[in-house]
């Protein structure tokens, strides 16, 4: 079934959907905004220019919404989509902002120039942007976020977190994770959340600070490595061994969680939960502004 909605500049179309279907949206430029409702249907509202058309295609497994240009690339389109909360989302664009609000399903969202922001998500949640920031809140599952030239933020979420950027900060705040890999090259990396006894936490940056909150009663083996940086702690630690270079280990409580903290030339800091201020967003000496 193909509903070709040409010539219309304002589109408002609703198609019924069923469990097992996923929603795919591709918009070259503009905005994709997905929210949820209680109906088993997908509503597509769009404001499109005359040279751009919006196609809605539906089959047994997928409902797809895509923009195309009559001559050349599509112009900016504001796509407002309402979908069932259970429906997995696959969203992509180039010069596109992507926002998701309230879903309880898997999310894949990818853009080049534009921010990606999601509230919700369950299962595999993958958010990526090249030039824009990436933020996620209220999700659970396997959370995989990356940017190249901006910040990555995760808050009020749980599961396994893999967060990465090249030129920006990574902040994981109020994250209840069993596994964390958070890396930046030119930015700060910060984690605020419980350190679970069976968890593994690896935070690293080349040119920035690493901050981790450690609550009272934490049980963790901590390995700290830096080349030309510093280490500070809000509470006393007893080093079990110091090796050549600035590398040392220490144990907190029983030492069951594995925590690895690395900054080539920044400060590695342990703080108590009330002291957490997130990534500081310091200027690390590399101009990244447009």
């Amino acid at each position: 079934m193909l509903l070709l909605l040409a010539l219309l500049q304002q589109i408002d179309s609703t198609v019924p959907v069923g469990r097992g279907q996923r929603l795919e949206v591709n918009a070259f430029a503009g905005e994709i905004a997905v929210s949820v409702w209680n109906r088993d249907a997908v509503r597509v509202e769009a404001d499109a220019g005359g040279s751009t058309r919006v196609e809605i295609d539906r089959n047994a497994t997928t409902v797809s919404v895509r923009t195309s240009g009559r001559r050349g690339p599509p112009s900016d389109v504001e796509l407002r989509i309402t979908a069932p909360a259970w429906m997995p989302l696959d969203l992509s664009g180039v010069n596109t902002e992507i926002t998701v609000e309230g879903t309880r399903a898997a999310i894949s969202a990818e853009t080049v120039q534009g921010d990606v922001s999601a509230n919700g998500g369950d299962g595999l949640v993958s958010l990526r942007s090249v030039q824009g920031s990436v933020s996620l809140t209220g999700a659970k599952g396997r959370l995989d976020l990356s940017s190249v030239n901006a910040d990555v933020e995760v808050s009020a979420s749980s599961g396994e977190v893999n967060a990465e950027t090249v030129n920006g900060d990574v902040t994981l705040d109020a994250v209840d994770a069993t596994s964390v890999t958070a890396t930046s090259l030119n930015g700060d990396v910060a984690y605020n959340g419980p350190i679970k006894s069976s968890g593994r936490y690896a935070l690293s940056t080349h040119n920035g600070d690493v901050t981790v909150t450690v609550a009272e009663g934490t049980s963790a083996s901590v390995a700290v490595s830096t080349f030309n940086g510093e280490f500070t702690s809000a509470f006393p630690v007893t080093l079990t061994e110091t090796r050549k270079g600035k590398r040392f280990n220490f144990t907190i409580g029983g030492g069951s969680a594995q925590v690895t903290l690395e900054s080539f030339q920044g400060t590695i800091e342990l703080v108590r939960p009330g002291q957490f201020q997130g990534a500081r967003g310091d200027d690390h000496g590399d101009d990244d502004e447009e």
Partner: protein
Amino acid sequence: MSDQWTDRLSAYLDGDLKGSERALLEAHLERCEDCQETLASLRRVVMRARSLEDRPPAADLWAGVAERIGAPARTVGLPVRRRFTFSLPQLLAAGVALAVLSASGAWMLHPVVPTVTLVQPAPSGQGEVTVTPVAAPSAARSYDAAVQDLEQVLAQGRGRLDTATVRVLEQNLALIDRAIAEARRAVAADSANLYLNSHLAETMRRKVDLLRQAVALVAAES
């Protein structure tokens, strides 16, 4: 830097040590900081490898890259549970190897990860294990070849990308190159430092990842 247990850490990580041998190793781990550090590095490499599992290749560049690094021809088979087995010296090249393999899409084509053999392992048994930096010639050549291939594809296709995107990519590649240069200097000053070697490998992996992303953008615009 190493002891009789070092070469068993990979088996331990794979769950292959049983009974008394496992208990002995765990007892040793409690008091050996070097082995703890090596085990942590092994875990990071494995985590990185597994994180690549669900990523589709940006483009099938395998044919060209395989020729450069002398890899076997493409094979197709049923997926097999991955195992990640490294000896200590091999670990230090693993990050680069992962970068090269992921850049080529080989993870999709070769679902069983072979033991990394880019660096000749040191003799096992008693005595010191020589730590071979990631800049070992064969690993470095493979990495350079992969980077060169990706850069060539990017150079040919950069005209298809938005100029702002090209600028951002170039800025970030320059950042990574600067970090690689700093890490190389650090490794040169302290070649036995496992952190510095791992950090260098990770930074090199970042460059390949970013180039791979850039090539994917070019491919998408084609």
